[in-house]
């Protein structure tokens, strides 16, 4: 009579506890997945980098520019196929929170970025309009920019209100291409700067170089820098990936903290699971003793425990993994321009599954050992 009562009561109690545990797991796995995706997003620039591109900048820091005269000398270095100019404009579109990247680039810039796809007609329209600009698909979608629209940008580094006419939309070749940017003519910027008092014209933010043989990147970089050693503006040339990683490194500590914290949530849920499993094991002493009396071995009992734990983890973890992509979309909408690329990677999904598995096993270890060790007589006596 009592045993039956115990089991049914366990099952009822169990329903609620099971539901809560699965919910906790779902939230933990979801949070872990989102945090991982945030860290990935930080590396978006580096992920989109091509190994056939180098970036040459002023060796002092990015806040210094390079003279226009360097362009031909860089072109002369062996292995360099193309040299494009790019100056960070850093303006504000209506409000600071609408932040997106704006670059003043030379006409051959797009040749270096085949992953940015622009219809031929739009490209030639852009070529012909001095004040024209090209906007990426993500920007066009977010702000509703269409070909022909005039975008007013308030300059910060280059003062005044600048107006650019949208001449085309850039689409990304794949998910990792950054289409949250606006490019316009470097010539237009330079002409305007010439007219400003006190500013120096013929300055370029960075040069982007195309190279024929990616394996020679290190050697070519050194050669470029050697040309300008001991001159007015020494250069630092590196692969585009190294350049992008430099930006990531600036927020190193934040990224490290996020990584740590993503595992903290897993530890939290492990504690919750271990607790739930321990409770479950304690209540099932009679069941286990009965099973043992019937002839089932300790290995079988341990397996039962692991089985229960892993089932919960598969349920909760699976649900968390399923909910991550939609949650990521919501997060991306909410944070607006902060992350130009926000995509749940396959690696993240695998890690989520791994975490769920580890939690499932770890939480069940001690209860499984206890279950296996139950002595029949004592266990059955627990009925009272």
């Amino acid at each position, binding site marked *: 009579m009592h045993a039956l009562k115990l089991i049914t009561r366990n099952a009822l109690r169990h329903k609620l506890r099971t539901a*809560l545990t699965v919910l906790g797991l779902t939230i933990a796995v979801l949070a872990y997945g989102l945090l991982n995706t945030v860290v990935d997003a930080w590396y978006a620039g580096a992920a989109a980098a091509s190994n056939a591109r180098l970036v040459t900048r002023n060796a002092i820091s990015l806040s210094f520019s390079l003279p226009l005269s360097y362009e031909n000398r860089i072109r002369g270095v062996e292995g360099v196929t193309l040299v494009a100019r790019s100056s960070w404009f850093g303006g504000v579109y209506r409000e600071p929170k609408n932040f997106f990247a704006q670059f003043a680039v030379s006409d051959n810039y797009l040749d270096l970025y085949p992953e940015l796809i622009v219809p031929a007609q739009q490209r030639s329209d852009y070529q012909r309009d001095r004040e024209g600009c090209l906007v990426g698909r993500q920007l066009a979608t977010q702000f509703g920019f269409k070909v022909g629209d005039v975008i007013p940008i308030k300059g910060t580094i280059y003062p005044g209100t600048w107006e650019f006419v949208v001449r085309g939309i850039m689409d990304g070749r794949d998910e990792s291409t950054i289409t949250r940017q606006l490019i316009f003519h470097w010539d237009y910027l330079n002409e305007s700067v010439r007219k400003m008092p006190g500013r120096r014209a013929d300055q370029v933010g960075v040069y982007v170089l195309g190279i024929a043989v990616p394996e020679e990147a290190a050697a070519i970089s050194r050669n470029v820098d050697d040309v300008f050693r001991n001159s007015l503006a020494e250069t630092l040339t590196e692969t585009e990936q190294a350049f992008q990683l430099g930006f990531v490194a600036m927020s190193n500590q934040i990224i490290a903290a*996020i990584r740590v914290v993503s595992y903290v949530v897993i530890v939290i849920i492990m504690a919750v699971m271990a607790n739930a499993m321990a409770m479950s094991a304690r209540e099932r002493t009679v069941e286990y003793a009965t099973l043992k009396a019937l002839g089932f071995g300790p290995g079988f009992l341990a397996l039962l425990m692991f089985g229960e734990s892993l089932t919960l983890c598969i349920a909760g973890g699976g649900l968390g993994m399923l909910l991550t992509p939609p949650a990521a979309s919501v997060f991306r909408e909410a944070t607006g321009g902060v992350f130009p690329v926000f995509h749940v990677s396959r690696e993240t999904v695998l890690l989520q599954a791994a975490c769920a598995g580890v939690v499932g096993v770890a939480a069940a270890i001690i209860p499984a050992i206890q279950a296996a060790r139950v002595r029949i007589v004592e266990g059955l006596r627990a009925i009272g």
Partner: protein
Amino acid sequence: MAIPLSYIARNLWTRRLTTALTAGGLALVVFVFSTVLMLDAGLKKTLVSTGEENNVVVIRKGAETEVQSAVDRNQANVIEMHPAVAVGGDGRRLASKESVVLISLAKIGSGKPSNVVIRGVSQAGIGLRPQVRLSSGRLFTPGSSEIVVGSSIAKGFAGTQPGEHLRFAQREWTVVGTFDAGGSGFDSEIWGDADQLMQAFRRTSYSSMVVRLAQGDQFERFRSDIDVDPRLADEAKRERTFYSDQSKALSTFLNILGFTLSAIFSIAAMIGAMITMYASVANRVAEIGTLRALGFKRANVLAAFLVEAMLLGLVGGLAGLGCAAFMQFASFSTTNFQTFADLSFRFILTPAIVGKTLAFSVTMGLVGGFLPALRASRMNIVEALRAR
């Protein structure tokens, strides 16, 4: 409280493992929560101490940071002669024309480069920042290629000890001293002679001007005069406001990230608390029935379990805070999104943070324990007594 506290507390102690695991989960959430608050407090303190009450920063209109800004010599002279600017004991104006650029230095440890602010100051400029004190070595000699570094720079970047040299702009610069800026943003800067730096970087314009107002209430007049003056294209901000604005993005980001994480984690921890409290109730059904039979009311039972849950939260909160307190020995440095420069700040534990954190922790316990406590209070006496 009718049901004795000793009964409630001892029940937590009896089921030590469960209490520890649950409190542990809560402690971790508390740790994240309080660390974020401490980081924000540290950031605010760094900013507040970076600004002097009556100092005003003048930069070009539209520029958000000194690095983006340019104030040419003529404009600088006009600003300096404004009547609101205080005059020092030596008869000279308390105004400093400064040049601010970023250089790339390698961090100690990771070896990765970060941008560091180099500020070319005048003698007046040093006087305008009373919180800055020399902590080792000496000040740079005007007209020389000598520099002094802030304490965070000395700690965090390679080659910045007194006696060492940094090479940039085709010159060797000798570090002759370290200064302590009282935990303000200046600790993350390198200072040198303004004219020397401008020569080396081939700049003809200054980046900004910092002036001290003779009287604080003159600010509004100073600001509007600068704003409308046709010779100038500049704007004036109180130094405190200026630095506070510069870190808004970073502060907001850290806060949003931190609190979102705490909120999500707290759900997981509260679920843990709920599971524990349901089990606590389930294990003591007969006791609850007995208490009701003896004459304790439903409200008494509800209160007792709520208190148990809150105690659980309190234990977790104290544990988490205890660990977070150790963060005060660490310092945090990251690139400020807006200025693009490295900024170092600490974790600061204030009484307000202790209060908020414990309240958060106890609330987590309360929310997690509410439904189980309700169940306990609603039990039918006879059925409860039948349980063993």
